[in-house]
């Protein structure tokens, strides 16, 4: 990368020398173009380095504050299911479970909807209407998560309890996921809220991805006698697979770290249960909930350890998804 940049500088200086000879010097600043470029290069480079340094500093700080808990519990922390602040006994498994299950459920709900919305806006609506509808979808992303949380507590939770649960129980009640008492607050409600929150992210990226498919390709599919649905399937969805995956990853990133809205509707009970109606807790929500009043040092440190785990989880999932995208785009490209 650096070599590329340097060769770019070399080239641009050559070009600048040409310009310089024509119009002598820049009048506004008394810099030569050469110097300008150099200053620019180092400035931008330092900004880029700053971001990397920030990330490293963040991780270092997190590890430093989590150190007492790491020494006490070791790697078993991630697999311990006991979280007892009174006895200073900590394990992060219930939170790991809660974060992953709500995020994946949210993805399962949001992905088909988002892809559908993106297709509808791009392929069916007229350009003017498309602009209006997409504006509305993107506006969902601008709603603060605490507002989602309030809406979840006052509207969605009663709805889940009184309407959704009886329907699910009567139709799918034989599955262990839909058994047990429901109070409207729990994994299902949290996943629904998360799904709503990530739909705009996935939709807008999917739309950009679909736009990159050449019109020629779509027309070719239609010319070969495919219906509109088949055209979408063959000419649009298939080549966009890696792009859709990328959109999903970005949505997942938001879902994993979402705190306030989830904390308000998930029930905050560090337990692992198969039923989607039961309360659970996520890594982000337990940190937000217990950080202010954690008065034993080990408790505080354990919360930092949970934060570190959350970081690792998001990092791994992001990496994994990038790998899939990269692999797939190589296949499609080659």
């Amino acid at each position, binding site marked *: 990368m650096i070599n590329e940049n340097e060769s770019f500088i070399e080239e641009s200086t050559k070009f600048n020398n040409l310009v310089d000879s024509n119009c002598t010097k820049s009048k506004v600043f008394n810099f030569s173009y050469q110097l300008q470029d150099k200053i620019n290069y180092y400035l931008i480079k330092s900004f880029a380095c700053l971001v990397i340094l920030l990330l490293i500093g963040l991780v270092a700080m997190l590890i430093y504050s989590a150190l007492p808990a790491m020494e006490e519990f070791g790697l078993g922390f991630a697999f311990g299911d006991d979280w007892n602040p009174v006895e200073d006994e900590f394990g992060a498994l219930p939170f790991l479970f809660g974060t992953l299950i709500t995020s994946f459920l949210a993805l399962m709900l949001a992905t088909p909807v988002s892809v559908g919305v993106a297709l509808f806006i791009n392929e069916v609506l007229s350009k003017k209407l498309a602009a209006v509808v997409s504006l509305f979808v993107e506006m969902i992303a601008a709603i603060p998560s605490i507002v989602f949380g309030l809406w979840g507590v*006052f509207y969605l939770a009663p709805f889940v309890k009184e309407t959704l649960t009886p329907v699910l129980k009567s139709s799918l009640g034989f599955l262990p996921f839909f058994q047990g008492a429901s109070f409207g607050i729990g994994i299902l409600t949290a996943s629904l809220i998360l799904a709503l929150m990530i739909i705009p992210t996935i939709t807008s990226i999917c739309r950009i991805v679909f736009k990159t498919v050449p019109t020629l390709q779509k027309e070719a599919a239609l010319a070969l006698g495919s219906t509109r649905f088949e055209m979408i399937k063959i000419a649009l969805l298939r080549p966009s697979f890696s792009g859709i995956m990328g959109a999903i990853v970005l949505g997942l990133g938001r879902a994993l770290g979402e705190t306030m809205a989830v904390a308000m509707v998930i029930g905050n009970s560090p337990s692992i249960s198969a039923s989607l109606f039961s*309360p659970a807790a996520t890594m982000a929500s337990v940190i937000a909930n217990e950080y202010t009043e954690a*008065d034993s040092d080990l408790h505080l440190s354990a919360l930092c350890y949970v934060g570190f785990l959350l970081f690792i989880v998001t990092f791994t999932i992001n990496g994994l998804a990038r790998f899939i995208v990269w692999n797939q785009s190589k296949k499609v490209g080659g």
Partner: protein
Amino acid sequence: MKKLVTLFISLILSAQVMATIKVNGAGATFPYPIYSKWFSEYKKVKPEVQFNYQSIGSGGGIRQLIKQTVDFGASDAPMKEKDKKKAAWPIKHIPTVLGAVSVAYNLPSVKKLKLDGQTLASIFLGKISNWSHPEISKLNPGVTLPKEDILVVRRADGSGTTAIFSDYLSTISKAWKSKVGQGKSLKWPVGIGSKGNEGVTATVKQTTGTIGYIELAYALKNNLKTIALKNQAGEFIQPSVKGVSLSAASLKNKGGKVTTSIVNAPGKGVYPISAFTYILLPIKEETVELKEVKNFLNWALTKGQGMTKELHYAPLPKALAKRMLKEIR
């Protein structure tokens, strides 16, 4: 123009002459409403002192005090011995007001409900999981209880309210003490956690069959039905400011240390779940700020006490307030 400039400069200068003394404090969220009222009223009495109170939670307040970044701390629970050792100076606890934890429930068909501590502990332990359980109906003769599941609602965030409530349950029930214990965050056997007093209030309000503990002010403001709890004298007492103040009066009999727990206090008319909230004062060389904190406390423990009731805090018993005034000096 020149006049305007001179006026402006003189204004700045005069502002600097009347230099404000800034006093920083941090800690408990529970007394924040009354403290901020006190600070704004106190400003009328002594405009040159400016109080800046961050309600970051008791734990945070104690940490900040130990790190010496604030002039005073505030906490719902007395400092632990371990924390006291970390501080550079001895710390004095000054109680300011009393708060109570009320137990609210949502059963549309039941207007009045009485419980004793043992039954309450069994409900929060999950041993009693239905409203029509014989132990509940035994305490409520003549009341038809619905055959509904009990949903326990509790705080999800670490909180002084939880500490007071679990202190009461641990005092009254051995099973609770051994299985759960006392603290700001607990390992709850059953129930769902809501964030903050307002979260628990909302959940109890809109879900039938629920029972949850909240600060008294929240129950009163939101018109939630509260449980009449049995006190040591055998009476069933609805939570009230008066019942709380009475429980503080029992302190005399307990040796008088202000940091002793006053849950399940003896005496007639006492509401059993209540506690002091404290301002933590470092005992050190008197700085300007520390002096102002003491001046403020002098005011808060006398005139300030009259403002507590409208915000649903209980004032300190007069004798105790007098004793504290002596200790501050």
